[in-house]
């Protein structure tokens, strides 16, 4: 809820704790402290408890407390002389990202989100092939068969069942009649109660076997002469049954979490899932539901794409955007020493600390961050949805939701700080400086 003044009780609070972005939370505060929360899951509690219990606003220069003005001065100094700045983390709201992109243009920075690996697994599919997706309200009301690939969907999205898979009622399909299939590492593992109550069909297999399973499933749906015996155990039969069920469904939905599918080249498996959904639309209706949106990854990506034309892993060094999923990965750039400055933005969690990096690091981070070694500069920032209003994208990327403000303790927003840093920079010289440190 975009609230203009801070009330003790705030309804319809949008929670940025995960990509579900549930916006039905009711939060009660008193004297700037959180006193109660309704409808929040374990992640929401973690998010809000962390935010409300970390209030130290003190900027630190090389571990020493400083004023905000001194911190800005120091930050501008570091940015001014950087030849190869990397802006990473990028866990912030829409306005934070807008400011970051303006500064990145000015400084010739490279941009990548902390969840870049997960993001790119899905993006590579869109860039090379496109996909057919759906959104939460559609799934709530329409799905009669839901296939969930992987095993962590509840852990990552705790209210997934109640908000999407199995709401109280659905317009066109009775949630109770809905079929749920779980294709994932359930071998020896417990299915979460929330899913168990829905009488799911389990197809257990290790994540490493997923690429084969998806390939087989596509072939079975297309009626090609594959040999299901090439798969271990009963997997082949289970996939045959699943293929039949998908073809017979009126509106099947295929879900996965790209962050969970953390295996080399899993974008090929995701491509297979996306193509599967597309193929099912030849005769019936089907769509994919990629689950994402944590630490503001969808938010960051949307803003980057509309302002630059490209998603993350884009550099602005040469004065125009250049996107390269292979070369602009933040982990690689740091490991190879290609950046000479790291600006790490992480406003949503105190645990998402920057990696250790040879280059000096500026952290615009959640209050209360604890570092292995003090960064060159740390400025605690406001948490979006707690210290300032903002906008935030949901997992299905089609809904941008308002974030409200729950307290005022003087923590500046990422957007505000980046704008101040930007203003402090000297106009860019058209000729390189004489004694160029690069």
């Amino acid at each position: 809820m975009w609230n203009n003044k801070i009330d003790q009780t705030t309804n319809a609070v949008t929670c940025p704790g995960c990509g579900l972005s549930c916006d039905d939370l009711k939060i009660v505060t008193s004297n700037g402290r959180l006193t109660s929360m309704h409808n929040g899951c374990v992640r929401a509690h973690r998010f809000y408890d962390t935010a409300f219990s970390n209030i130290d606003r003190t900027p630190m220069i090389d571990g020493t407390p400083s004023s905000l003005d001194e911190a800005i001065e120091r930050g501008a100094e570091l940015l001014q002389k950087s030849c190869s700045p990397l802006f990473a983390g990028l866990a912030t709201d829409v306005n934070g990202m807008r400011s970051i992109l303006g500064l990145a243009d000015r400084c010739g920075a490279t941009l990548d989100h902390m969840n870049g690996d997960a993001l790119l697994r899905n993006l590579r599919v869109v860039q090379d092939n496109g996909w057919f997706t759906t959104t939460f309200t559609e799934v709530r009301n329409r799905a009669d068969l839901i296939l969930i690939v992987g095993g962590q969907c509840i852990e990552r999205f705790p209210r997934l069942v109640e908000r999407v898979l199995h709401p109280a009622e659905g317009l066109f399909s009775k949630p109770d009649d809905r079929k749920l299939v779980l294709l994932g590492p359930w071998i020896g593992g417990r299915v979460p109660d929330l899913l168990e109550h829905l009488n799911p069909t389990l197809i257990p297999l290790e994540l490493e076997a997923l690429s084969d399973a998806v390939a087989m499933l596509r072939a079975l749906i297309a009626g090609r002469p594959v040999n299901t015996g090439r798969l271990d155990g009963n997997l082949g039969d289970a996939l045959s049954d699943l293929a039949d069920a998908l073809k017979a469904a009126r509106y099947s939905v295929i879900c996965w979490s790209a962050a969970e599918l953390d295996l080399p080249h899993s974008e090929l498996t995701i491509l297979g899932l996306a193509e599967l959904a597309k193929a099912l639309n030849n005769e019936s209706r089907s769509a994919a539901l990629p689950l994402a949106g944590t630490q503001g990854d969808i938010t960051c990506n949307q803003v980057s794409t509309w302002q630059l034309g490209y998603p993350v892993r884009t550099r602005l060094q040469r004065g125009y955007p250049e996107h390269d999923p292979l070369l602009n990965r933040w982990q690689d750039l740091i490991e190879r020493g290609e950046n000479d400055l790291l600006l790490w933005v992480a406003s949503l969690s105190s645990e998402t600390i920057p990696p250790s990096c040879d280059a000096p690091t500026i952290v615009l981070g959640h209050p209360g961050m604890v570092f292995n070694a003090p960064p060159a500069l740390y400025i605690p920032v406001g948490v979006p949805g707690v210290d300032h209003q903002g906008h935030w994208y949901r997992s299905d990327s089609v809904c941008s939701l308002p974030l409200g403000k729950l307290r005022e303790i003087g923590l500046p927003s990422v957007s505000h700080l980046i704008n101040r840093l930007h203003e402090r920079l000297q106009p860019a010289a058209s000729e390189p400086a004489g004694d160029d440190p690069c």
Partner: protein
Amino acid sequence: MSTLSMRLRSPLSQRIDMSPFTPRRLAGRQGSEIARIPIWLGNRQLECGELFEIDGVAGEEIIIQSESDRLDRIGAGMDGGIIRIEGDAGAYLGRGMRGGSLLLNGNAGSAAGCAMRGGLLRIEGNAGDFLGGAITGERQGMRGGTILLKGNAGDRAGDLMRRGMILIEGDCGDYCASRMIAGTLFVNGQTGSQTGYAMRRGTLITTRVPASMPASFNDNGLQHLNFLTLLGEEIQRHTNFSRIMDRARPPRRWLGDLSCDGKGEILFWD
């Protein structure tokens, strides 16, 4: 034959784009002029001469001497002449090249030969992932020319390959020939797991059983294939490894990837 040599003065932290430096683009230019060509290093522009010691005359051949692995796009788009690299190459070696010879005596980074259209790319050392692959968003990778790799390739060699020939003397990593559309990929050594994933057409020949192939491939049995004789001759023009031709036995042929209506073939001797 006139030769221009460019020696990298000292190691680089940032990557540089070497695409301006091809025989055709530099033809007729004096060394002093070449030294003034701007190169971006990070967010600053330097002159080529600040990074490279330049000798000789620009003509048919360029020699690049470098101990850095951050020289990207060497030979990108080249369409004639020769570029020799003494040392390593960064990413996108020979990207989109159309003709000429690009000869590397060290190792190449990712995406060597990506979107290549013609000419010869020869690498004495190893290559990174996506050898002969595709540019982000494009529907095809390599579409002409020949890549000869004496060492090992990383993962995804031949990804989205559409035409041309890739000859690998060493081993390949995983997902070799992924999404291959057509063309010929020959691996003298060992290919890794999920060889041929999402293959549509094209031919992958390897002398050993792949570590694994997707479950959606089918065993098509032993095959006598006449075209292998012709292929062997073709291969011998580029390299003297021809174990493939020494084998009197017919190869085994697997067809796939049936996940995508694939009519690709993987041939190997088991």
